[in-house]
Structure formats: structure tokens, C-alpha cells
């Protein structure tokens, strides 16, 4: 019942499934992107290199053909300027156009002849020379004062000089960065969306499983008629439901068989017992003083036999988890008070003191008749086994959603020889004169109500028996369960 309310989503299977699925999805998409990124970066590089190589050839050509007069610098400079406007991957900012491209012309000795661009021409030339630029393709060169390296292509001229054309990698990088940022945003939203979808679908699917679990946990010791809900889709989960229901059919069938057997056994034994008891009572009514004593003890023996028969069948049914219950909400505190009221004079008579430590009503849902008989059994036990001068303390409290009832005495405790098998049928100590079903019956009743019994000797001496029974659901919880069901 509490699985629905108490469990945080972080601990659920749906959470783990979605976490792992998302992780796998993240890794996959990251690998795909790395490949894509490599490919795009190479392509951009290749295209800008192609432009550089083409342009440097054209500029070299222009520089060669232009007459070497006073206008030479201006003409070549303007051509270079114009070329820089066609830079690929150019950023949107117009002021950057000047510093993204430079043009250098050197003479035969390698001295700077013409410089078009922003910044310090000789510094660029120095950087290029330091790199020992080979004749072939463009290379990346880092120039002092600039954050991003330049891609530089060169061409030789007929007069032995060289032309260099450099293009800043900044714009190229910005394009890549742009792409990466967009991809990351897209990737993040995809991952989150995927996680949400996986989480909600698996939670929805698993909620059917949880419904089955909830229903199955309610189909317990007494209620075998209910079946787990089956979703309309013919999937694995509805198969699970079908299988569970078939299993429940079989269990119900066996339990029904057991009931039939115990019923007919009870009937076949009780009918003659009724007749014998009736006859004995009729003879007793004749007031024959010679036989009265023996008739009376026969009736008493017969009543003990009946009680033994009832308890044996109860224990037998309970051991098979087939005890029939008629549950209602009962207050253990009030129940204990009235049983103590019944037993106290007998206890006092034998010099045993009894104390109840319970402050508030404690409600459980249980078969009242069985709980009465069970508690009476515990008291009978104390009454029969405690020597005079001892005391019994009864504690009743609510703890961890359970009603906990503890009976502890300061008597001799359980016989060590029977301690191990206190709750098995028909075990009794040497000094005991009962039929030994007492604690087995207690265990049977508590188990039938989904509770637990612990019995042991205390270190300080004396025996202690603790019963835990599930508390009755409060009004709000009951409504919640009804809705969920």
C-alpha cells in the first residue's frame, strides 16, 4: 500500500531505465557529432585553402603585370583589398574585414615591398619566414598580437620576389563555434526530451506492473476471490497478469479443497460430540448423585476436546494460509482492557500482578473473534505457567505503521528445550498441562493477519512475547487506496 506513496521516483525502475537509455543516447549522438564536426571543419578548411591558393595566384599575376611605377603600390593594394572582400565564411561584423586578410609582397631578397592589411607588416613577414614556408599548399601561422592564427598561401613571381596572402582562421572558427553551440543546444533539448519520453512511457508501462503488485499484495491470506487487473493491450505485462490470475485460480482451488476437508472433518466430529454432550447433559438432569461427578467430568473433557478440535483445525488452516477471516476495525486498547478485566481476578487470586501500558486507542483491521481467542490464549498461558508473586506487563503501541503488543513477565521463562519450536504445533514444556496448541494458535492468527510474533526469554529473566499487526489504514489512506484500485 505504501509503495505508491512512500517511494521517491529516484528509486524506481522507470528512473533507472530512462537514465541508462539517456546515457546511451548521449554517447551515440556525441560520437556522431564528433565525426560530423571533423568533416565540416575539414571542408571549411579545404574551401578556404582553395580560395587562398586561387587568390594568391591571381594577386601574384597582377603584381607581376602591373607596371612598376608610382601607382604600383596603390593598384596592387586595391586589388588585394578587393579580394579580401570575397573572403569565405566572413563574419557579419564589417569592421573585422580589414584585419581578417593581409597581403605581402617581397622582393628578390625577401624584404618587404608591399603590405596591405591591419597591423604590423614586418611582424607578419617575420612570422612567415620563421615558418620557412614551402611552395606547396597553405599553412597555419601564428602572428604575435593576434589571437587566432592565419592561413597563409604564397606564390613566387618572375622577378624572384614572392606574394603572400593570409586569411585569419577567426571566421572559420566562428562558423564552427556557431555550429557547435547550436548543436549543443539541440542535443541538450533532444536528450532532455528523450529522457522525459523514456521516463514517462516506462513509468506508464511499469505502473501496470505496480498495479498488479498492489492488487496481488491485497490478495492475501483471506481474500482469494479478487484478481489482478489486466490491461487491454496484449503485451508482456498483461501476460504477467494472466499468469498470476491462473496461479491464483489454482491457489483458490486448493484452499477451497482444504476448507471442504476441514469442514467435513469438523462436521463429522462435531455431530457425534453434540449428541454425546446432549445425552450426558440429559442424564445429569436426572440428578443421580452416584454418577453426577463422572458425568460432569466427562462433559468437561468433551468441551476440552471440542476446543482442541477447533484450535487444531484453525492452526491447520492457518499453516496453509487459508484461515477464513471476517475482518472489521477493532480497537486493541479497548479489547485488551476488557480481557484484562476478565482475567485480573484470576491473576490476583494466584498472586500475579498485571499492568497495561497503553495510552491511546490502536486500531487494526482483524477478525474480532480470532483476536479475542488469541489474546485469551496468551493470558491463559501466563495464568497457567507463572508462579505466584510474578507480574505481567503488557505494552501496546503504534510503531512503524504497526500495532505492537508485548507481553513480558518476570517468571521462569520458556523451557529451553521447547524454546526453538515455540510456535510449532503441539509443543509443550514438561510442566505444562495444556494441549500445546496455545502459541501455535497465536502464531497462526497473527500470520493470518499479516503480522509477526516473536517470543524469547529476556536477559533479565522472564519471557517476552511480541506481536506486530498492521495498523488499520487511516481514512485518507483508505480513500487513496480506493482511488488507486
Amino acid at each position, binding site marked *: 500500500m505504501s509503495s505508491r506513496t512512500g517511494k521517491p521516483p529516484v528509486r524506481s525502475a522507470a528512473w533507472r531505465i530512462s537514465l541508462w537509455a539517456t546515457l546511451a543516447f548521449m554517447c551515440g549522438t556525441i560520437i556522431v557529432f564528433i565525426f560530423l564536426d571533423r568533416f565540416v571543419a575539414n571542408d571549411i578548411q579545404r574551401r578556404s585553402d582553395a580560395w587562398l591558393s586561387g587568390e594568391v595566384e591571381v594577386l601574384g599575376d597582377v603584381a607581376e603585370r602591373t607596371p612598376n611605377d608610382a601607382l604600383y603600390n596603390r593598384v596592387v593594394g586595391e586589388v588585394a583589398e578587393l579580394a579580401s572582400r570575397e573572403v569565405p565564411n566572413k563574419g557579419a561584423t564589417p569592421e573585422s574585414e580589414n584585419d581578417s586578410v593581409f597581403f605581402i609582397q617581397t622582393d628578390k631578397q625577401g624584404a618587404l615591398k608591399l603590405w596591405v592589411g591591419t597591423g604590423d607588416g614586418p611582424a607578419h613577414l617575420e612570422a612567415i619566414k620563421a615558418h620557412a614556408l614551402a611552395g606547396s599548399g597553405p599553412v597555419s601561422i601564428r602572428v604575435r598580437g593576434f589571437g587566432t592564427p592565419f592561413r597563409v598561401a604564397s606564390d613566387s613571381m618572375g622577378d624572384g620576389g614572392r606574394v603572400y596572402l593570409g586569411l585569419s582562421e577567426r571566421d572559420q572558427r566562428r562558423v564552427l563555434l556557431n555550429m557547435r553551440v547550436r548543436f549543443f543546444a539541440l542535443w541538450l533539448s533532444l536528450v532532455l526530451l528523450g529522457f522525459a519520453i523514456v521516463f514517462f512511457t516506462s513509468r506508464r508501462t511499469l505502473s501496470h506492473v505496480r498495479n498488479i503488485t498492489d492488487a496481488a499484495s491485497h490478495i492475501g491470506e483471506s481474500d482469494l476471490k479478487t484478481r489482478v487487473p489486466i490491461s487491454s493491450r496484449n503485451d508482456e505485462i498483461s501476460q504477467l497478469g494472466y499468469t498470476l490470475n491462473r496461479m491464483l485460480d489454482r491457489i483458490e482451488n486448493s484452499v477451497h479443497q482444504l476448507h471442504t476437508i476441514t469442514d467435513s472433518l469438523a462436521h463429522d466430529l462435531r*455431530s457425534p460430540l*453434540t449428541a454425546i*454432550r*446432549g445425552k450426558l447433559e440429559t442424564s445429569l438432569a436426572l440428578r443421580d448423585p452416584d454418577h453426577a461427578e463422572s*458425568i460432569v467430568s466427562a462433559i468437561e473433557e468433551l468441551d476440552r476436546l471440542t476446543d482442541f478440535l477447533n484450535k487444531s483445525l484453525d492452526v491447520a488452516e492457518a499453516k496453509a494460509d487459508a484461515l477464513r477471516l471476517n475482518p472489521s476495525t477493532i480497537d486493541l486498547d479497548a479489547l485488551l482492557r476488557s480481557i484484562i478485566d476478565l482475567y485480573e*481476578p484470576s491473576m490476583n*487470586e494466584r498472586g500475579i500482578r498485571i499492568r497495561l501500558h497503553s495510552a491511546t486507542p490502536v486500531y487494526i483491521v482483524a477478525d474480532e473473534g480470532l483476536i479475542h481467542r488469541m489474546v485469551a490464549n496468551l493470558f491463559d498461558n501466563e495464568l497457567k505457567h507463572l508462579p505466584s508473586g510474578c507480574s505481567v506487563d503488557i505494552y501496546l503501541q503504534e510503531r512503524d505503521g504497526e500495532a505492537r503488543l508485548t507481553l513480558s513477565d518476570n517468571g521462569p521463562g520458556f523451557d529451553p528445550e521447547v524454546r526453538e519450536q515455540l510456535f510449532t504445533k503441539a509443543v509443550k514444556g514438561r510442566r505444562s498441562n495444556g494441549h500445546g496448541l496455545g502459541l501455535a494458535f497465536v502464531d497462526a492468527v497473527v500470520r493470518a493477519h499479516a503480522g509477526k510474533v516473536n517470543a524469547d526469554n529476556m536477559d533479565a529473566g522472564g519471557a517476552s512475547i511480541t506481536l506486530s499487526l498492521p495498523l488499520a489504514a487511516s481514512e485518507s489512506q483508505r480513500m487513496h487506496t480506493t482511488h488507486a484500485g
Partner: protein
Amino acid sequence: MRLLMVEDEHDIQAFLLRALSDAGYGVDVAPDGKTAETLAANNKYDILIVDLGLPDQDGITLITHLRQTGVNAPVLILSARRSVDDRVRGLEQGGDDYLTKPFALAELLARLRNLLKRNAPPASELTRVRVQDLELDLLRREASRSGQPLQLTPQEFVLLEYLCRNAGRVVTRSMILHKVWGMRIQPDTNVVDVHIYRLRGKVDGNGQTPLIRTLRGVGYVLQDR
């Protein structure tokens, strides 16, 4: 009082017939459901005793059928079954009663009387009960014997009231447990006896004529004469 007993076990029939006749009932016996229906159709009974396990049909079915044919007399259901059926519970709520086998005759008779009383027009609620020189004031919860007030605990008063209301008739231990403590239990210790001894010490003390008698193997009776 005419009574119809529907019971197939011969031995049970025999002793019940005798005990019921002794108690003043005019008893007809039906060994199966068929006979019971015929008898009920031709006679008017004040009360019925029906065993649940009949050879030809289920006791509950018989009761339902009799009710449909206009038999309104209260029914005491006898059951040798293990658990109390929901349908029996339903009948119990409808004013009938049940008793599991084996039972004490005293309890059977007490339940029959209760059923007849329940269906009789309600007598005006008693406020005082008097049995010989024992007097109970039910409103003030006080008891006195020969004019001398008795110091009773509330529980002792309830027990004495129950004995007084059944004065002259036997009450068994299980009847006391059921009616005074509200429990259907069978303790294998003498808890009820101790209550009775204590009560007797207060009621029959001081050398007065004993009122509360023990019938060993049966129960107790508060003598009314």
C-alpha cells in the same frame, strides 16, 4: 409454544426432543428440508431450529424458501461448520440466531427464549430488578440485599444483572463470556468462575441464604425461589 426442529442426526434429534419437551415446547421433528416445508405449510410454529447440513438441501436455502412462503417465526440455526457463513451473518442481522455444535443445552434454551422475546412486543424497559431479597437499581447501578447495599464494581454489577435477568435459569460460562464481556472465547482457565466466586462472596456473604448456585459441568443459576 410450537417448535419445528429440522435436524437429520438421529441422536441429536432424540436428546433435543426430550430437552425441549421438558422445557415446555411442543416439538415437531423434520429429518429433511422437504418434510420441513410440508410441516411449515400446514402448521403455525412460534420458532424453528434448523441444522445447516441437511441431507436434501442446504439449511440456508430452506430458511430463505420458508421465508418466501410466509413463515415469519424466528430461526435458531445450528451449525457444525467451521466458519460462520456470510449468509448466516445476514440472517443473524435479520433477527435470527446461530449456535455452533456442540452446545450446552442451557445455551440452546437461552437462545430460544431470547429469540421469542425479541419477536414479542417490547416490554416497558425495566429500571429495577428484584429476585427474592436481592434488588438491583438499573439506572443508578446500585444493588442491595435485604436492604443492605452491596459494594460492587461496575463489571460485577453487569454480571449480577445478567444473572438476575435469567434468574431461575441456567447460564453457561460461554453465555456469560458472550453477554457480559462480549467475547466468544473458550478459556481453558477458570476466569469466569473466579468472577462468580467474588460476586458470590459479596452477594451471599454474612450467612445469608445462597442465591448463586454452581451446576458443575453446566454453569450457574441464580435461584429465584
